């Protein structure tokens, strides 16, 4: 077992996939010679050549649209969207073209394509460089949405995304790129999509989260468990489409309390969908209304820092306490 950062794990996944399958190509702004602005593709152009690690013009819509064509023709393009704040230029291409070819053509054409979207706040990046855009891509179907966090999950999720016959959006945790390390066997084995990871077990509250919030939530729940104030079960969803609803429902039926923590703005966020699914599948088991601790319905901030925008330990703890103290 070797230790990798999140970034090294992502690079390893692309390198392993490209070695195993000649149809895998990587394209994006600055991904070639410079190895990407985060260095996620560092060394890959030297290894695989400029025809497979392709520097493109500065045009997110154009990059995704050409990747769609490559996917239609049988390649496995992996697009690096430099920051997920820039992905919306390609929104129509993703949601009204790439994710719909299979359905619109009755299964005649398909569009395997991976979009790597460096995401989330906490990097002093301001609005455009700090985005948690998953909810936009959960509406209307045809694209899978993965939210891996640990180095191993990032490695195996990206491998699964590249092997998938449909478009996959991978929301990557920029703030953890270099700070989070983890050991795993670099064996080329993809994750089974749609499986949540139980980070810690508990009987009082089920916490559903993804991305860098997994770490914050885990830290808060560990200290609350040590204090004896709440025993929380933490589920790192890892994948929103497909969703591991069975694991969620099983946990909720055991704890009867649910906290959803996501960085994205609250209204219309995936937390709303989760809450509806849970109340439908586990209504009789709930002891309290489902709580959400999320980003606010305002943009990520720069000068005051986005720590008052993103869920933080204080707000996560407050959310858990509200659930524990709720009385009918």
């Amino acid at each position, binding site marked *: 077992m070797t230790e990798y950062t999140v970034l090294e794990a992502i690079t390893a996944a692309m390198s392993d996939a490209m070695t195993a399958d000649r149809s895998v190509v990587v394209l994006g702004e600055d991904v070639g010679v410079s190895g990407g602005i985060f260095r996620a593709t560092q060394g890959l152009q030297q290894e695989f050549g400029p025809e497979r690690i392709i520097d493109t013009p500065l045009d997110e819509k154009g990059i995704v649209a050409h990747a769609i*064509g490559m996917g239609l023709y049988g390649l496995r393009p992996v697009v690096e969207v430099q920051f997920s704040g820039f992905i919306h230029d390609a929104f129509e*291409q993703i949601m009204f073209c790439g994710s719909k070819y299979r359905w619109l*053509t009755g299964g005649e054409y398909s569009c395997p394509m991976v979009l790597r979207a460096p995401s989330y706040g906490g990097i002093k990046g301001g609005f455009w460089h700090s985005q948690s855009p998953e909810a936009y891509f959960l509406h209307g179907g045809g694209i899978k949405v993965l939210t891996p966090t640990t180095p191993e999950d990032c490695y195996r999720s990206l491998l699964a995304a590249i092997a998938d016959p449909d478009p996959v959006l991978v929301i990557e945790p920029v703030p953890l790129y270099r700070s989070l390390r983890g050991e795993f066997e670099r064996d080329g084995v993809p994750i089974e999509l749609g499986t949540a990871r139980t980070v810690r077990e508990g009987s009082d509250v089920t916490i559903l989260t993804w991305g860098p919030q997994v770490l914050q939530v885990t830290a808060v729940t560990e200290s609350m468990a040590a204090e004896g104030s709440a025993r929380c079960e933490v589920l790192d969803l890892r994948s929103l489409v497909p969703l591991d609803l069975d694991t969620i429902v099983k946990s909720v039926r055991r704890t009867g309390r649910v906290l959803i923590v996501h960085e994205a703005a609250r209204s219309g966020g995936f937390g709303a969908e989760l809450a509806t699914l849970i109340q439908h599948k586990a209504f009789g088991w709930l002891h309290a209304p489902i709580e959400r601790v999320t980003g606010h319905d305002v943009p990520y901030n720069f000068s005051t820092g986005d720590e008052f925008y993103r869920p933080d330990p204080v707000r996560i703890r407050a959310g858990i306490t509200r659930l524990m103290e709720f009385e009918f």
Partner: protein
Amino acid sequence: MTLRRFSLMSTSSEGFAGAPRAAQPTPLSQAAELGIIQRLTQDGELIGDDPPAMDPGVARRIYETMVTTRLIDERGWELQRSGRVEFWIPMRGQEASHVASAAAYDLEDWVFLASREAGVMLWRDAPLVQLFAQIFGRADEPLRGRRLPLLFGDRSRNIVPCMTQVGAYIPHAAGAAWASRLQGEQRAFIVYFGDGATSRGEFHSAMNFAGIHRPPIVFFCQNNGWAVSTPNSVQTATETFAEKSAAYGLPGVRVDGNDFLAVYETTARLRERSISEGPTLLESITYRLGFHTSSDNPDLYRTTDEAASWQEWDPITRARRFLERYDAWDADQDEALISTRRSQIGEAISAAEKLPKPSPEDQFSDLFATPNRMVEEQRVQLIDDLNGATP
């Protein structure tokens, strides 16, 4: 101040009050001066000394396909007007532009369609009943009735249907061409789009990437004069659409799109070039003689004089005159063709109309390669609800 401005605008802008725009003369009568490649006069006489670079058999087959396309268009329009077909996209006037260009391509080449190219399906031997099954939205056609009438596609014939957002698919075609070249193939690609599509960001993206990466493709812009009610002059300030290619380091060529010989020869040459040297933007100058769609009314925005001036350059008439001059066609053959195709179309309509429509459950397939749980639950719920099974 506001009032003054308003009065200035309303007196100085011709057509502002909603009258149809003044007729624009067809550029086909000044093709040589305008640098438009033209090989046939209005009467089908050959222009220039070069013999036609088109096999007589191919010429006849293009002509027959053009006529069939016209007959489908006429019959389909009637079906729409009588309520048997939901929607129609007229193709009248653009038959040479799309059929002769498709004929310049090999069957293993890939074609990305826009919306007025039924003749490409015919050229690639799609049966009439398949076309009408698509038009009637029946389950038993390649796209399972999921697209509006005439938005054809067929994987077995290397035909990709358009994404309906005009021009959004231009880079898909270029990306596929790029992928083919990366795999070391010698395959060629063509993508059809209209004059209006050149205003979309994806046109820019495709041209810009193509200038750099040189995929083997012809960007085939069918300039039919109008994007719904928007004429060329309101679409762009450039004199031509072809010249836009210069900004991307690509050649741009203009061809008389109502001249089947010029379209065939030019497209064949640019197809070859796309493989050896790289892509070209080809502006095919044609005219939509009919409505934009069955929901349109061209009388609101253009004069009948304009359409009449283009009618004189009807691509089918010109092609027939050319074939007759070379003794490759005669009036008896023409009559026989029309009568045979009319009855074949009638039979195809009867057969296609009898085919079953997709079931309510059909919508749930093909979203992903493998069924998605959420969608599967919705499918089961729908069936239960329809069966009255929900307590």
